[in-house]
């Protein structure tokens, strides 16, 4: 263990966020803690602390953010944004931070469960349509009894166009990259209360105390 070195921080992180167009102006944060005070996740899992995450970003402690388990806990309820005296759109910041973390090969286990929804949505242009025939029959029966189409169907044109969007926005390629990129092992870990410890085994397997 050594003291945190300010020389390890990077201003690039804050700059990247500012140019992302999503969550500019986080330098307005006055670290008042209102966000954390109303955060439902912090209430259950106090090592997740939105105020401290903003500070990490402002100081440029990007390595700790990238490897953070905590960032994946956010419910995205926006209670923080609704109460923030400095009008910081924290959920958009969090969205960006998660993508940033992924771009460093972290966080895959928190994204993997959703890839199947994306794959299905690409085929049907609707999310969450179940695959199990019995469940589909149930839905068909209920919807029909309400005078709705048996299933919510997007037109063939609509599906074609949606698939084209996957192509032209580079999403198909993005997904391919995502799936081909292995998760980078993490060699830092945190205890509750944010005490930094060196992981001697360097295995990255014990990320949570």
């Amino acid at each position, binding site marked *: 263990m050594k003291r945190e070195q300010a020389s390890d921080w990077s201003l690039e992180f804050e700059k990247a966020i500012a140019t992302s167009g*999503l969550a500019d102006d986080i330098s307005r944060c006055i670290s008042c803690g209102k966000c954390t005070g109303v955060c439902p996740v912090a209430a259950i899992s106090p090592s997740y602390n939105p105020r401290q995450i903003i500070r990490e970003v402002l100081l440029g402690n990007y390595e700790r953010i990238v490897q953070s388990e905590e960032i994946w806990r*956010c419910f995205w309820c926006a209670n923080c944004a609704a109460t923030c005296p400095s009008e910081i759109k924290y959920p958009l910041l969090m969205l960006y931070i998660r993508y940033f973390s992924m771009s460093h090969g972290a966080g895959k286990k928190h994204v993997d469960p959703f890839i199947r929804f994306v794959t299905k*949505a690409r085929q049907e*242009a609707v999310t969450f349509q179940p695959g199990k025939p019995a469940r589909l029959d149930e839905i068909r029966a*209920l919807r029909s009894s309400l005078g709705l189409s048996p299933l919510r*169907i997007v037109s063939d044109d609509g599906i074609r166009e949606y698939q084209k969007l996957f192509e032209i926005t580079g999403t198909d390629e993005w997904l391919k990259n995502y799936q081909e990129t292995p998760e980078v092992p993490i060699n830092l870990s945190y205890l509750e209360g944010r005490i930094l410890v060196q992981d001697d085994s360097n295995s990255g397997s014990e990320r949570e105390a």
Partner: protein
Amino acid sequence: MEEYQRLSLIDPQRVANLPTPDKLFLFLSCTGSIEYPGTERAVRIVGEKLGIEFVESVDQTCCTGYMLTCNAVNPQLALASTSRNLSIPQEMGLDVGVFCNGCYGYLRELAHLLHSNPAFKEVGDKANEALGREKFRGHLKIYHVQELWYKQLEKLTSLVKRPLTGLKIAAHYGCHYLANKDVAIDDAQYPTFHEEIYKALGATPVVYKERRACCGYSVGRGFTHREETVLPHITNKMLSAAAAGVQLMTTTCPGCNTALDREQKTITARGNAVSIPVIDLSQLIAFALGAPVEQLGFKANTTPVLPVLERFIK
């Protein structure tokens, strides 16, 4: 005087500015279509009673917000599909009505980003161009149906066929409507307009400790952090509602409804017995307005609804 009645922070100017449209584009919700199709039906029934015709399009796709906020797609896809989806009502010359807080929040935020950031606009414009669609111009209005219902509260009151006398109802407002502080008609911290609607329907509004706590299900944490945070959170919320004597809860988002209704089974199985039916506000209104109960799709609910509504059906 009840707590919720002592102070209203509803913005009268914003309510006054809401339209009473004849016709709106109905933006369909994936979760709604699959989990609680009765909601969509109820929206149409209430709309009909208020003289609002809802038009849909089979070309409308998923809003893509969920996949974006689960970090499972390239963010540009969400911008492009918002641009494309909103070009449909734009071509029809209609404003948009939404009945899912998720779709509402994503559409508004993404439309704002498309409109305000040239780089994002280019993504949207390029997409629409490639599909042979009009550019999204950003002028159409996006409403959540709950605010349109509140706008016509007097008319709703006059249409009540089944006064819900004595029914103790509590609100789950959902975060992604109220967080839109620039347009939401009520205070993000202590809203009261749902309680006003319950009263208009003859019911007894109940406030509970965790009424502004979120459902725990947005951005997919129900899949990734269910045991760690989501279940303890929902348990806490629902137990606080039970402690306040809540008999029925309403939502304005099929996603919230899924979390609060379906998870009660697990919460109960783990030793905290709780049984509070959770339905959409539009379903409640449609019911009070006399809609045939079989049209409201309560069969879809995990926590049975009819036991608390039965006595109002003649």
